[in-house]
């Protein structure tokens, strides 16, 4: 039982809580000779692989470090431009580390508001009457389960594809939300949840599920 992340979306579609549980790191470091057989590109303030997928380095992976010094934006730690560094023959052999980019908080907000129309479209395009929106969405690497409360708040968890009983976990998170967020006098509706008690009990719940499954919830 692996839970990768928990998201809570308010009834107006805004992300009010997110928590990354344990997302595995996908990183590969490799030494390259001149000329570099991978085509790099600068997009969204990151240097990404645009072409030349091989040895665990996939298109879309982000350049993390050059010769061990971390890359921020398009410059290395000592202020050199990455694209200039990889062009110069004298710099080779060059050790480059690539990895799968993790979603930033901004990207998570975008993702959460992207799920909202998908949920609505799923019920509009239904071939049968009186149908709800998406309850679970499965891809080859993960399964997303969603539970919408009567008031329109959506609880979303991302788990591994073989996860069973995610409905129970979602119901338990709903309980925690009503106990520690809604009943908190300092919490105002539709606003991001910043309640310590909620955080700690959510962590306890996720650890429990990870260790002993959903059987005894």
């Amino acid at each position, binding site marked *: 039982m692996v839970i*990768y*992340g928990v998201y809570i979306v308010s009834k107006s579609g805004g992300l009010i809580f997110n928590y990354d549980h344990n*997302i*595995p790191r*996908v990183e590969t470091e490799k030494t390259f000779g001149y000329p570099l057989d991978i085509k790099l590109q600068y997009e969204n303030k990151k240097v990404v692989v645009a072409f030349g997928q091989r040895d665990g380095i*996939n298109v*879309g992976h982000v350049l993390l470090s050059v010769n061990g010094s971390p890359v921020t934006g398009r410059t290395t730690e000592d202020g050199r431009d990455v694209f200039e560094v990889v062009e110069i023959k004298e710099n080779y052999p060059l050790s480059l580390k690539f990895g*799968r980019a993790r*979603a930033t908080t901004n*990207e998570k907000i975008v*993702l959460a508001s*992207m*799920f909202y*129309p*998908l949920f609505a*479209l*799923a*019920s*509009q*395009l*239904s*071939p*049968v*009457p*009186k*149908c*709800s*929106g*998406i*309850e*679970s*969405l*499965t*891809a*080859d*690497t*993960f399964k*997303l389960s969603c539970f919408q409360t009567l008031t329109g708040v959506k609880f979303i968890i*991302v788990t591994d594809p073989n996860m069973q009983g995610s409905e129970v976990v979602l119901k338990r998170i709903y309980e925690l939300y009503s106990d520690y967020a809604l009943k908190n006098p300092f919490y105002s509706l539709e606003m991001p949840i910043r309640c310590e008690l909620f955080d700690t009990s959510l962590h306890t719940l996720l650890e429990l599920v990870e260790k002993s499954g959903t059987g005894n919830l």
Partner: protein
Amino acid sequence: MTIHNLYIFDRYGSLLYYGEWNRSKQSGMSREEEGKLMYGMLFSIKSFVAKISPLDPKDGFMHYKTTKYTLHCLETPSGLKFVMNTDNQAQGVRELLKRIYGEIYVKYAIRNPMCGIGEPIISEIFKNKLDAFIKQTPIHVRAS
């Protein structure tokens, strides 16, 4: 267990074929518009999945489930999309879609000299073969 309907899209998003078997609710728009909406949703789901996935996805999106139906999607390497709506009990729909691709689409649409690539499939034999294929599968049982 029921199969509701099937959409086939090409890689540019045009609806090549639509077939329905047990559909009890129409979406209230023209078939063309519905196709566009469906493709738009799948396109967004694809990019959503690529971003939220904790690991690098290979096949990507496979199916989603609502209270009443399940939508299965098969994307071929050439970008064709086979989308089938079934009820929630249906099993092995992905294999079924692969067989529709290999045994019906390739055989009666691609190899048909009268069917242009990227044009809607109007071939009568494709329709009949697909109907016969769907009706003999164990998933398909008439709801009525």
